[in-house]
Each structure stands twice: as structure tokens, then as C-alpha cells.
């Protein structure tokens, strides 16, 4: 997966978690927590959706890497480079 694929995958997960949310103006460099008010339960869900959809395991100490779109994509790129897009 390319960075663009990963970004789309994350947007898919976010729109699944928060179906009422308009994600079209999501800012890539602002924490999800501040834009969408996601809480710890939601972050756990992002992790679990990644595991469910792409078989990616993310250790708990790495959860802070998922703070914003930019940091998430940067963190996932090496992990998902061999995942089919």
C-alpha cells in the first residue's frame, strides 16, 4: 500500500466508526482527538479495525503514533508496504 492507500484505508475506518462525521475537511496534521473528539475506546477501535482488515498488529506502546492522519500514515507505511491495496 502507498501512503495514499493507507490514508484512504484510515478514512474508511473513521467513517465506519463515526458515520455521522463529515471527513472531507479532516486536517492531516491535527490530532484526531481534537478534530473528532475520539477517545481511548475509539483509538482501540482503529487498532482493531486495522487488525481485522489488514492483519496488522500494533503494540499498545505504539498507540500514540496514531494521533493524527500524518503520524498514522507515517507509522503504518513500513508495516503496510506489503499489504495489497
Amino acid at each position, binding site marked *: 500500500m502507498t501512503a495514499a492507500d493507507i490514508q484512504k484505508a484510515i478514512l474508511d475506518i473513521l467513517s*465506519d*466508526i*463515526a*458515520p*455521522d*462525521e463529515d471527513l472531507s475537511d479532516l486536517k492531516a496534521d491535527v490530532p484526531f482527538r481534537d478534530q*473528532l*473528539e*475520539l*477517545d481511548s*475506546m*475509539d483509538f*482501540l*477501535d482503529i*487498532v*482493531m479495525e486495522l*487488525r*481485522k482488515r489488514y492483519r496488522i*498488529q*500494533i503494540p*499498545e506502546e505504539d498507540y500514540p503514533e496514531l494521533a493524527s492522519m500524518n503520524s498514522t500514515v507515517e507509522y503504518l507505511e513500513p508495516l503496510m508496504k506489503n499489504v495489497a491495496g
Partner: protein
Amino acid sequence: MYDTIIIGAGMSGLAAGIRLAHFDQRVCILERHNTVGGLNSFYRQRGRNFDVGLHAVTNFAPKGARRGPLARLLRQLRLAWDELALSPQVGSAIAFPGVRLRFSNEFALFEAEVRRHFPHQIDNLRRMVAELADYDQLGLGDTNRSAREVVGGYLDDPLLVEMIFCPLLFYGGAREHDMDFGQFSIMFRAIFLEGLARPLAGVRLILGRLARKFKALGGELRLRAGVSRISVKDGAVEKVVLEDGAELHARKVLSSAGWRETMGLCDDVRPGGERTAGRVSFIETISVLDAEPRSLGHAQTIVFYNDSDSFCYEKPDELADLRSGVICSPNNFVYDQPLGEGVMRITSLANYDRWAGLDDNAYRLAKLRWYDKVVASAVRFVPDFRSSVIDTDMFTPTTIRRYTGHENGAVYGAAQKSYDGRTHLKNLYVCGTDQGFVGIVGTLISGISIANRHLLKV
């Protein structure tokens, strides 16, 4: 072999089931009755739909809100706001002799009412609310402080204290007179800061949505599948035995049957146990009217009433307590279309033992007699609707016992809660009423949070 067996298809069991099935677990929900719902259910009689349990959904938040328990549970269950079809309340009141405090989903109304009737308390109330706002909604620690003690430290007018406790206890008090401060915070927020709502179609709509969602995710829902025994081996559940003799195996078991009720199923636990059953139960009269309550001059959603300055939330000596109650008019929500027939539901504290001790004839007679008494008591606080009644029904503590399985018909379960959801067995957990959260939103959050914490380990 299932990943998880869930005992009870009430709100909490269904919510937990959705979480687990969504993340690809093999899940089976076992329900003793022929329909879902448990404490919150519905039935059809003489061509009419009757709801039991839910008067209103608490913790209302408008569409688009991102904070609070309702937003959180929608995200966790992958539901859109519109799917619950919630219509906000018109407005409610707490009625004591000579004082009526109105409240709505706008907290400013309640503040204005307190300022008008208790001018010296408004600053105290605001200080208390500021502290509650900081209180972690899932704050499971610090639950052993008496709410009456803490609230008494802010508000020094005993009448206002009683008036605030009245709705909170009626809508979630598992023990008599008082509650944990943690529970108080959650209830105060749920009712006063967030507010009340209801789907036009009632509780059946929410239950239907949850059950369909669970099944669409591949979950298995077995109705008429009462559990007779949880077989224990080496400190863990070995198998779940159904009343028809079938034996089911699962890696983990989540029970929403109640703490003592669950312990009673475990074959390694002696009956009774260290915790006592709850004592708080209710009767409810349901009156169907040939007119909307509004046309009779009653436009409020819920009226919590009490006929003296002190509110006694306790098991009464008589069959029911006529001093206080809750009057709910399901018509008085802001729907897009009228509900249809007028309905008035009145809930009062009741004594389980007295009702359970009646033989069939005496029970039927008592229902008629106490319907009249409860309604006569309630119409001191709302317009007298009795000449408009065209159909009635009533449930009692024994009805609650039958449909929830809760000992003593204790609606809100045992006084002692199991906030972390663990039991003496390493693969058995509890959720629902006895885990600690109450109300529709609370019990959904209970199922979700216990599933997340113990059953969905990454």
C-alpha cells in the same frame, strides 16, 4: 466451540454481542424468553403495544454531538444517530408540596427554576455541577462515597437535595435512600445535563435495531434458551448447560443475568453468597386514553412527585408506596407525528414479598385495587385523566422478577455493583444492571465496556 457465550439478550448483552461479532468472534446470545429486551421490553395485548422498562432514553445529545455517552456508544456500535430515531422530551418536572422544579434538555431551565425557588442555592448548585463535569464518566474508582454526604456538602437546603435525589433514585437507585457518588454523577449528567428522549416507536425500535445488527454481523441469537447451569472446572467455566439439556462450550462467558443470579447458576457456588439481593422494586400502571394528555392539560413528559418534604426511597411495608411516583406521558416528546393514543404510565415503589405472597385471585384483585390507588395518588400532581381511560394494564414486582430474573424483582439489581465485571472464574464476566451502569445508555455502555476490556483483548 464459541468464542463467547452471552447470557441474556437485554440491552447490555446485545451491545456486547455486537462488539464481539463485529470483530469476528463466534458469539451466541442465550435468552430465556421468546423475545429480546429483558428489563426493557414490550408486549402486545388487545391490539395495543405496551412498553415496559424504558420511560425515556437518558443522556440525550443532538445529532452531530461528539461528546458524551450517547456519542460514544453510537461510535462503538457503528450506529448513525438517526438509527435510534430519538425525539427529545417536551419538558419534565419534579413536584413536591408547594414547589415544582421544571427541567428540560436545556440545563439553563433547571438553573432558572432553582434560582427562582431556592435563590440561596444557585451558586452552590453551580459549584456542584462544575465538579460533576470533571468527573470521569467511566470513573469506576471513588464509588464508595455517599452521594448524600457529598451533595450535602454543596447544597444546604434539604428540600432541594430531596428534589434532586428523587428523579435520580427513581431512574437508577439500586439501593435504598442513597447512591454512590460516582453513580450520582452519572445519573445527574444523564438526566439534568444531557436529558431525555424517546423513539416514536418506543423501546422496541432500539431493541430491534440492536438484534438485527447483531445477527447481520453473524451473531447467533437463541430465544427460549434459558441457562440452567454453568458447569465449573479448574476455576473456569467448562460448559453452559441449557434448560433443555443442551451443553454449549465457549472460551469465555459474559452474563447479564445479575450478580447473584449468575452465581446461582455456577455449580461451584453455594446458594446465597456474600452479596445481598436488591430490595427496590416497582409497580407500574399503564392507562390508555381516548385523548392526548396535552388535550387534558398535561403537556409534561415526566413528572417525579412526592407528597411531603422528605422523599423516602425504600421498600414500602404495604404493596406499594403511594407517597411518591413517576408519571410518564410517552406522547409528550417532540415527535414528527403524533404517537396515536394517549398513554399515562405511573411508577411507584413496591414491596416484592407482599406481591409474591398473594395467591392468584388475591393478586388479580390487588392489581385492580392498587391501580386505582396509584392513579388517585398521581392525579394530585397532574390533571385528572381518569374519565378518559379506555384500557389499562399493570406490572408488579413479580412481573419484573419473571421477565428479568432479578431476585426480589429488583429493577436496578443488587446494591453492590461489580464495576470491573470480573468474577471468581477466570473466563466468566458480568455486565448489565449489576455491573453498575443504569439507564438505556448506561446499560449499553456496560455491555460495550466489559466486552472491550475483557473479551476483545488485542
